[in-house]
């Protein structure tokens, strides 16, 4: 029997927390609601047209994309996590962190690099044709790069680290005891993996999978490069081409329902797993030493995603940077751009994590359905295509801003203009909305480690809710807070659509500059800022890897 199954009901639930959570969750949920509000707008027959023509393709392609990416990231992420955590083979140590590297790669950069390289008119196929004297595509077979398969491949390569990271953390946290228990009950290492380790890590794996699939759904750049029509590209087309923002938003709302299902699945899988660890005793993991062909196979399996998802595109970026010339690449306003990116990413990371902590803690104190719903809706911003949510963010923010301006005007007779729109604050708010899901998931999961009796102990020892948070919860989960901040940090470094539309005048970041060059088809010039994003992204990735390795109790001592 759990020690205190009803702890949540008992601790007094101060009103300020409830208010804070509702205000913050409301702010974060507002853009999503703005998008969803369009559901009620009339569509003037556009839906009939879409249903008769392209809607089927959108659905089929989106589902196929999700299916393919889901399968790929699960196999790749879990497989590599298990191998580097539980086995020893040449290179397994460095691979522990190297497997996270593709996270630092913006998907659109990878997509751009690969389509450019592998296309019919790209250097590889042109070279092959020259080498073998082929005249046209009728003379030889080459896989169609710009296809669903191509898009899935690239997305798997950059998204598998989400699953890898969480699965690895879960494997590390598992007590050796349960695995040994399984072994003594007559199960071999593989059956122990499938029978014990995998089910125990399931919640984490599904959480990672959900993140990867949300990224898949909100991706626009990659599928566009690969000429795959999905819901997301459909939204753009309906909005821009048909001039029907309402219908576009309705498509967006349908997309959100896909995601709501994903999130529900994730919650469902987490539901039963409130188990705090059954044992507090840990020993060093007994790692299975692999040799011969097994070692080679393991190495190949783990190295492939790193090479394809990181090494090759990073090398391309480096080559372009050198081609353009180092002085030109890193001269000019480069440092200024980097500074903008860093400040924004840091501010957004701190904001998103702070809000996530407040939401998660208030949810613990006040586990009612209202708060839960507010927090869920607030997290949906992650799944909505970037450009759609950017507009969703912009509309209420500007409305508020105009309201303020009018109020001031009524008092003073002079309008101050828009005070929030087009400032850094607006950007940070936008990032908070967009990436709250990333920090919230991480914070919520780690708060679960603070057992109810620890909370009760702090309370009986004289701590109020705020003091308990400060003195017990935060110190206990500071590792997770760091990684949550860094995850948001990396995402903000790469973020594009909201940055583009919400930024102040004359304001550029590494991401906007990369995009500007890339969309101008001046790929070589895009090399330096893209490389900088990757390099800056590497810092958190490496710290993250350390934090995960240290998360195993007893392993660090």
């Amino acid at each position, binding site marked *: 029997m759990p020690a205190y199954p009803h702890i949540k009901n008992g601790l007094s639930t101060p009103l300020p927390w409830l208010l804070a959570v509702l205000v913050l969750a409301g702010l974060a949920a507002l853009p999503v609601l703005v998008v969803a509000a369009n559901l009620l707008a009339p569509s003037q027959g556009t839906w009939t047209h879409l249903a008769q023509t392209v809607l089927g393709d959108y659905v089929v392609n989106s589902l196929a994309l999700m299916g393919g990416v889901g399968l790929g990231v699960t196999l790749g992420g879990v497989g590599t996590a298990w191998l580097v955590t539980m086995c020893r083979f040449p290179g397994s140590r460095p691979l522990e962190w190297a497997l996270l590297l593709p996270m630092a790669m913006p998907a659109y950069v990878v997509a751009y690099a690969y389509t450019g390289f592998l296309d019919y008119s790209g250097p590889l196929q042109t070279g092959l044709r020259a080498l073998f004297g082929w005249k046209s595509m009728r003379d030889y077979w080459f896989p169609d790069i710009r296809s669903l398969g191509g898009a899935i491949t690239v997305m798997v390569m950059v998204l598998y680290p989400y699953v890898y990271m969480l699965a690895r953390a879960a494997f590390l946290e598992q007590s050796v005891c349960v695995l040994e228990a399984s072994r003594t009950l007559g199960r071999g290492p593989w059956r122990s993996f499938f029978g014990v380790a995998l089910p125990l890590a399931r919640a984490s794996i599904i959480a990672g999978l959900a993140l990867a699939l949300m990224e898949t759904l909100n991706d626009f750049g990659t599928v566009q490069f690969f*000429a795959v029509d999905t819901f997301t590209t459909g939204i753009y087309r309906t909005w821009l081409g048909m001039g029907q923002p309402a219908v576009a938003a309705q498509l967006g709302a349908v997309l959100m329902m896909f995601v709501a299902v994903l999130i529900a699945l994730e919650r469902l899988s987490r539901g039963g797993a409130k188990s705090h660890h059954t044992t507090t005793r840990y020993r060093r993991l007994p790692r299975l030493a692999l040799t011969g062909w097994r070692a080679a196979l393991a190495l190949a399996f783990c190295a492939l995603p790193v090479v394809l998802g990181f090494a090759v595109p990073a090398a391309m970026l480096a080559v372009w940077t050198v081609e353009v010339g180092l002085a030109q690449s890193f001269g000019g306003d480069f440092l200024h751009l980097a500074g903008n990116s860093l400040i924004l990413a840091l501010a957004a990371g701190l904001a998103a994590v702070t809000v996530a902590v407040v939401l998660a803690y208030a949810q613990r104190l006040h586990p009612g359905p209202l708060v839960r719903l507010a927090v869920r809706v607030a997290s949906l911003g992650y799944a909505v295509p970037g450009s759609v949510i950017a507009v969703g963010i912009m509309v209420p923010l500007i409305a508020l801003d105009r309201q303020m301006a009018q109020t001031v005007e009524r008092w003073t007779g002079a309008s101050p203009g828009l005070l929030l729109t087009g400032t850094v604050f607006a950007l940070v708010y936008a990032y908070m909305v967009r990436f709250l899901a990333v920090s919230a998931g991480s914070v919520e999961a780690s708060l679960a480690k603070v057992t109810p009796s620890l909370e009760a102990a702090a309370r009986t020892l004289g701590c109020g809710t705020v003091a308990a948070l400060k003195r017990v919860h935060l110190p206990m989960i500071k590792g997770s807070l760091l990684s949550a901040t860094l995850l948001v940090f990396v995402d903000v470094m790469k973020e594009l659509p909201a940055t583009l539309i919400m930024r102040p005048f004359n304001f550029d970041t590494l991401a906007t500059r990369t995009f500007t060059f890339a969309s101008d088809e001046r790929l070589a010039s895009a090399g330096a800022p893209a490389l900088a994003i990757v390099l800056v992204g590497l810092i958190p990735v490496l710290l993250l890897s350390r934090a995960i390795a240290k998360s195993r109790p007893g392993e660090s001592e």
Partner: protein
Amino acid sequence: MRLFNRFALTAAACLAATAVSAAEVNVYSARKDHLLKPVLDAFTQETGIQVNLLSADATQLLERLKSEGKDSPADLFITTDVVHLHAARTAGILAPVNSAVLTKNIPAKYHDPQGYWFGLSARARVIFYAKDRVKPSELSTMEDLADAKWKGRICVRSSSSSYNQSLMGSLIAHDGEQKAEAWAKGIVANMARKPQGGDTDQIQAVAAGQCDVAIANTYYYGGLQTSAKQADRDAVAKVGLFFPNQDGRGAHMNVSGAGMTISAKNKAEAVKLLEFMAGPSAQKLFAEANSEFPVVPGAKLSPTVEAWGKFKAEDINVAMLGENAARAVLIFDRVGWR
């Protein structure tokens, strides 16, 4: 820090509503930075008026302008196509500009009849062909590309591109919706591959032998001809440019352009910038930096563009293209042109 400048500015404006500190003009632009920047820099140099620039996606800028309404900080909205200018006018966020300079410099077909927006540079959407596989004599009109003889030989980008939408808008205007749809169906049947990539990719595909003809805008061809990369220049040398419909209405034209917002606080500066962009030095920059056609008659072409020769351009008012864009997309959806 620079980010907080706006704050300081607005605060200052709040204190002294009438005092405008330094002359400036705020621009929302969907044009590529590197094409616009030299023009804006030249403007600042000549007039001393500071230009504040925000570059983003046209559709999103449009949404932002709509939300901001008359409180928008933007004075000018610059786009690469008529579709968005037309949408901005329809949404009521553009204010008419009455400038003798603009109406004199810019031909009537390239600006809004009431002066809500003005075309600043023009481009033709034409046919490119593989020199070794297609004789120019085989080519005639855009309509002809729907003929079965081109089966499996055409490359063209996705219909999500506003350039294809405006081409279709022109066909709807000239041939009627039914014929236009039949044409689109024919093009889909003749495609060498499913639509992918940008206009440059279509020209590259012709050079690489994946298809024999392609539909693309002229300046992408010019971009490859003037590329710093030898490979680009080698590739484009294998591709010829053909202006279609020369015996009839002329080649399809679309424009980049700009309009003043209803919220414009720096009206004089905004008009000054519009006039500057329609003036000789800016027109020369557009022509040279991006191999576009100046809208001002008689403005000098870049040598690259000059070499393509004289051609007949269609006379339809480009405003019509914006009006037809939504219908164009419906047609594309129906015929399966992705």
